[in-house]
């Protein structure tokens, strides 16, 4: 079946200082298709989307939409042409209610009708099985809930073209399934969905075609049902890539970390053990309290009860500083707000956690700082024109690598990874997996909180599951299955 | 206390315009009175109070006093003495400082009325600014005494001298000093720097009068420089520094108030100063504080170049005059205006 083209982007070029973000990219999108954009971190996917939505201005090329040709877009024109975007970065207004955010920009003049907004929102939420209070302020929601609000906001406009830039990065299984449902619905109505994700299995689940980009350039477009995972990876990375999880068997007997009856504001009575050389997976639904549990252990949030042992000794951790001194590191889930210093350079970010070791006499040794940064740039394959680039200007995935480098530089025995591969491309993701393997082989211990079921099953030696702040179960390697996890996660 | 035996510059412009010779003689006389009084403020306040208060009885009365600022020694000394004198009559004082803000002062006047003050004393930040609030108080039967600054709507006033008169007097002592120091100077040969201010009307009247008086003299080659904030000593110093470097041959500075004078003095006497011949340099101003007095005394040995000022009168003169105006109010009699005295203060005053 041949459907008509609703949008073509022709020869789009976008330049940043030292970076060609888009290099003469041309893509067509058809009505009623789910069209994926795939590429490594920094390939230019988000940039292309921003050009389409008018968030940024392209330096060259044309956009043909609804029979009109535009040299560049503005947010108003783009919206007028029926384009709605869920951006990779959060784009909600914390001081407004959920309903107001969802209805923002619908009505430009006159009086607002809050009741109507709430009922419209309520209807949408019910339709898509989302459980959020429309009157709540967005700033009071968790990141996952915010993501759901963004999705609802985008689909509420009844747009012709809906762009989703990594919508699932913040979501867990059940919400992802929910989203698939929404997308199929949209497709059935003849709408176009442009879908960006680094989770390849998702592409096979819902997309019709995949456009691959590499280094700002268009590579090719393939039909999803005529391609394979390996082919996509090869097109994207430009070489063959081993796509299996690293094998290892290095769990030791010594207990690195023991948590007994720990409670926080959102957790009650959680106990578990972490062995040296082990990767412990932590699973749960959105808001299950995984992040908070990790922050409590790390001393970033207040512990209300319970005991923590490191290397068999009882420890009292009141601040992240003390945690680091005891050899516990944390890679936070929210890289922008907690992970990095956006306005500082890559090299500066990487050095901040162990700067005391990079000195000569009393003064910081710039050469040591540079050498360390170069080491991690190579090791994690950070894509940047220079180490002096501000982190703000990096693509999401590369920002995540900087955060990783920063925590690795602190050289701790126990490392907590909270959603370590969120927004990271498949190539880099495997680099991170290899890195985690190497770390545990050295005898370090890792806790990995993840909402990516595949990686959780592939990487963990053991998995614990949280539900509503309580530990609901523990799975050994031979008990691993999606069903088992889901069962524990939705445990009442 | 000491009476108004000295030469009063207040009464009229006529007096102020009297020949320089006479004025300079008079200055010598005044000064004696001034210095005595300053020696022993507490004692003389008591005297002043006694003298005028034979008849005043403030028992059970609440007197509201609002002043522009407590940020300088003179204002503080006068207000303290005023409070003391009023309290001595048995009245209670509600005292407030308006922080040089007219709006604040208006509120204070209103609050005083609400508090049931029987008499208000207003030393206005700006007489026109508070006129309307004062008028309302008066209309409610509360007598308002305008102190130091004129308020068109007040019931009565105690004003030593108008700003213009004080400015003129300052010009006079400055010219006297020129006569003595540069007797042979020809036309336009003496460069004089005038530090003026105009951000308050009161400042403007004073400045204009000083400038007018000094430029009457044909020997004077006048440069004018204006400060933005006449309460900012550091800025005044900076301004004088800049002007003197540009005009190293300046022989005399006349300034519109004490703060600017102290700023000027502090530069001229500092090691950074480019004025070598301190003996032939003078600063003249209006306002009196202990610090200014001590500088004027020191100027005899040229350890200071601040050589003269115009005083609203000694503390006890002022308070005495103030109580003359207060007494009828405290006794529920018809308000009367009292013209206080202003004096020229020069080194001779302290002999």
């Amino acid at each position, binding site marked *: 079946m041949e459907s008509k083209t609703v949008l073509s982007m022709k020869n789009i070029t976008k330049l940043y200082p030292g970076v060609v973000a888009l290099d003469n990219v041309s893509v067509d999108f058809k009505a009623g298709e789910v069209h994926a954009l795939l590429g490594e971190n920094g390939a230019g996917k988000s940039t292309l989307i921003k050009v389409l939505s008018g968030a940024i201005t392209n330096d060259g090329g044309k956009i043909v939409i609804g029979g009109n040709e535009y040299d560049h877009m503005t947010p108003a024109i783009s919206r007028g042409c029926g384009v709605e975007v869920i951006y990779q970065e959060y784009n909600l207004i914390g001081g407004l209610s959920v309903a107001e955010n969802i209805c923002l920009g619908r009505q430009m003049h006159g009086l607002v009708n809050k009741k109507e907004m709430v009922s419209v929102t309520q209807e949408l939420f019910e339709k898509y099985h989302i459980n959020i209070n429309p009157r709540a302020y967005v700033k009071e929601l968790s990141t996952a809930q915010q993501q759901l609000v963004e999705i609802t906001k985008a689909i509420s406009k009844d747009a012709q073209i809906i762009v989703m830039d990594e919508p699932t990065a913040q979501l867990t299984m059940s919400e992802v399934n929910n989203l698939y449902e929404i997308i199929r619905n949209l497709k059935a109505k003849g709408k176009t969905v442009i879908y960006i994700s680094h989770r390849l299995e998702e592409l096979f689940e819902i997309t019709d075609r995949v456009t691959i980009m590499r280094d700002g350039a268009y590579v090719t477009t393939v039909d999803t049902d005529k391609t394979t995972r390996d082919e996509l990876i090869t097109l994207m990375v430009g070489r063959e890539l081993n796509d299996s999880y690293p094998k290892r068997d290095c769990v030791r007997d010594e207990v690195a970390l023991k948590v007994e009856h720990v409670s926080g504001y*959102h957790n009650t009575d959680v106990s578990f053990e972490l062995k040296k050389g082990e990767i412990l997976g932590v699973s749960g639904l959105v808001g299950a309290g995984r992040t908070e549990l990790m922050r409590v252990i790390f001393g970033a949030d207040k512990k209300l009860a319970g005991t923590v042992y490191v290397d068999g000794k009882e420890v009292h951790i009141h601040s992240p500083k003390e945690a680091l001194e005891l050899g516990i590191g944390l890679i936070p889930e929210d890289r922008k707000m907690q992970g990095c210093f956006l306005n500082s350079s890559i090299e500066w970010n990487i050095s901040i956690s162990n700067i005391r070791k990079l000195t000569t006499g009393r003064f910081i040794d710039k050469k040591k700082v540079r050498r360390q940064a170069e080491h991690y740039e190579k090791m994690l394959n950070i894509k940047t024109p220079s180490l002096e680039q501000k982190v703000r200007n990096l693509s999401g995935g590369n920002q995540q690598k900087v955060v990783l480098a920063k925590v690795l530089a602190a050289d701790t025995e126990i490392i907590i990874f909270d959603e370590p591969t969120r927004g990271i491309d498949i190539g880099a993701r495997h680099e991170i997996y290899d890195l985690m393997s190497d770390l545990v082989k050295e005898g370090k211990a890792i806790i990995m909180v993840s909402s990516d079921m595949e990686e959780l099953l592939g990487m963990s030696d053991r998995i614990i599951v949280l539900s509503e702040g309580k530990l609901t179960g523990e799975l050994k390697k031979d008990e691993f299955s999606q069903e088992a996890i889901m069962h524990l996660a939705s445990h009442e | 206390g000491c009476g108004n035996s000295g030469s009063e510059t207040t009464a009229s412009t006529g007096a102020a315009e009297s020949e320089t010779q006479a004025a300079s003689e008079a200055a010598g006389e005044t000064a004696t009175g001034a210095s005595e009084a300053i020696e022993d403020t507490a004692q003389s306040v008591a005297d002043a109070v006694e003298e005028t208060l034979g008849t005043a009885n403030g028992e059970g009365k609440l007197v509201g006093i609002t002043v522009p600022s407590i940020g300088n020694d003179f204002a503080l000394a006068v207000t303290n003495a005023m409070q003391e004198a009023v309290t001595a009559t048995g009245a209670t004082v509600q005292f407030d400082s308006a922080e040089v803000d007219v709006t604040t002062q208006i509120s204070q006047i209103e609050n005083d009325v609400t508090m049931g003050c029987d008499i208000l004393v207003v030393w206005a930040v700006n007489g026109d600014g508070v006129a309307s609030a004062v008028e309302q108080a008066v209309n409610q039967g509360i007598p308002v005494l305008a102190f130091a600054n004129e308020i068109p709507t007040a019931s009565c006033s105690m004003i030593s001298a108008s700003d213009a008169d004080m400015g003129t007097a300052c010009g006079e002592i400055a010219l006297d000093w020129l006569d003595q120091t540069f007797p042979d100077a020809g036309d336009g040969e003496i460069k004089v720097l005038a530090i003026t201010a105009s951000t308050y009307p009161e400042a403007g009247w004073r400045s204009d009068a000083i400038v007018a008086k000094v430029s009457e003299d044909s020997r004077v080659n006048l440069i004018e420089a204006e400060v933005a904030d006449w309460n900012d000593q550091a800025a005044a110093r900076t301004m004088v520094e800049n002007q003197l470097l540009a005009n190293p041959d300046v022989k005399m500075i006349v300034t519109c108030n004490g703060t600017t004078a102290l700023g000027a003095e502090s530069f001229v006497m500092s090691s950074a100063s480019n004025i070598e011949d301190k003996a032939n340099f003078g600063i003249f101003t209006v306002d009196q504080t202990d610090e200014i007095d001590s500088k004027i005394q020191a100027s005899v040995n040229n350890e200071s170049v601040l050589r003269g000022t115009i005083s609203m009168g000694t503390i006890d003169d002022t308070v005495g005059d103030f109580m003359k105006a207060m007494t009828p109010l405290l006794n529920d009699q018809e308000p009367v205006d009292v013209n206080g005295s202003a004096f020229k203060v020069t080194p001779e005053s302290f002999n």
Partner: protein
Amino acid sequence: MTKSKIQKLIKDNMMLIILILMVIIFCIFSPNFRSFRNIMNVCTQNAYFIIAAIGVALVMISGGTDLSVGQAMAVIGISIAMFMQNLGLPVVVAIILGLIVGIILGCFNGFMANLLRIHPMIVTLATMTLFQGISYTLSGSKSFYGFPDSYINIGQGYVGPISVPVIIVIVVAVVIHLMLEKTCFGRFIYAVGGNAETARLAGINVNKIKVMVFGIAGALFALAAIVLTSRGGSASSNIGPGVEFDCITACVLGGISFIGGEGKVKGAIVGCLILGFLTNGMQMIGMGTYIQYIVKGIILLASIGYDTYQQTKVKKAPAKA
């Protein structure tokens, strides 16, 4: 359920509670304070301040701050005086022209912030000086007084027991409150202050909103200047300036965030009244002038601090479904 609602009510109205407590304490200690007349007086005295603070609150909600308010008020006050006295225009015309001057000054701030793409606080740091120069130049630093009775009545008149300035405040508060809460424009102000980029992408003309907010604030400053000069019966370069810090303090007390996107008109008013009653109360109980500063400083710290403490406490409490 009901208990947590009461908790939320207390949390949301902490500053109002502090205000009421403060008033009660002063009432106990000073008989003069607790007269209707005094309460009305404080409201009237602070009317201009409340109006100006509402203007500043608007700017703060939209993500900026206005430091030029005092100097702008001086310029406006002087302009109106000159319209009446130098040009002999009727009072109504002078007032309308004064409002226009206010709007122009405000829009200038907003326009500059957009043009130069710098934070409004920085723009107004510069225009504060600029407006000061204008007010001096216009007035030649004279003060203007002797206004027509019809003008004076704005500041000094009464309708029954309520003073005209208080009525003006009530009208302004209601209008601005409705504008913020009930109109699209109002919600856009929050959106722009909360996240300008999101607002832009939602098709909101951020620059236009900013200029309009500053324009409305300018009109409010003009109104404040009118109330102030008609009450005092005079206008000069010194009447107005100094109010900027108080406005910001009042807004902060009233829970209007520095970062933008949050706050209510109610908050600004409560903040102003706390400052106003504090000053008045301290005078009424006859507290020493020096001590008043110290007490004011401590009360500011304590109340802002307590408010934040309350907020974090409620936030941290275990969430209930």
